[in-house]
């Protein structure tokens, strides 16, 4: 996946913590730490949005119906990719 550069200003204390985490071997470098933190935020926010969407629905799809819809999606994707 292509990556892009962005500049972020951080508090000295935050940077010190990051450097300490890098020093302890948990992360390769500052970039590795920040990238990991960003991904974690994206994951949590996406999960929150998905849960919100779920809570707005009145009731779950009956399981056999859910499985049937998955089978239909699986067949459609299979046809599209493998012919």
């Amino acid at each position, binding site marked *: 996946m292509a990556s892009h550069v962005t500049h972020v200003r951080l508090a000295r204390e935050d940077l010190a913590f990051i450097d300490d985490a890098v020093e302890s071997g948990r992360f390769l470098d500052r970039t590795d730490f920040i990238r990991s933190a960003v991904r974690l935020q994206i*994951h949590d926010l996406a999960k929150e949005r998905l849960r919100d969407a779920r809570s707005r629905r009145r009731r779950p799809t009956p399981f056999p119906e859910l499985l049937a819809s998955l089978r239909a999606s699986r067949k459609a994707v299979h046809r599209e990719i493998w012919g």
Partner: protein
Amino acid sequence: MIRAYLDTGVFLVFLDRDDSNSERVLDAAADGLFLPVVSFHTFQEATHNLLARRTKEEASWLRYFVWTLPGLEVVTADRLESLRGEYGDRVADPSDLPHVRAYLAAECDRFVTVNRRLTRMAIREVVVFRSPRELLEELGLPVVETPQGI
């Protein structure tokens, strides 16, 4: 550490039901309790399914959610090529095969699925299937009572 291939249904059950074993499995992956593996098919199927049943936004959020699972490995199409043509006689539905091949290509040791039909086919001789509940039990985590352990 367990390398578990997560079938698309695990994500769809999470989106559909409050407090499912599928959601707990995804939480366990986020906590780094096992290494999650999916394939490019997983993204395509989930997107196809959500565009048909839900909204474009949900499909997009799910892609972000899956893509950012800590430690995630995504099996790409080129890795399935070497297994093309194999195991076709062991499943009834050829559209299940890319997932089985992704599991084998990534050298996973568990295949977590909500599809019991698949777990009863001859492919079970080479694939270690687990329901979400069974994986949680194996990891020593609490489970929730659901039909078929989903």
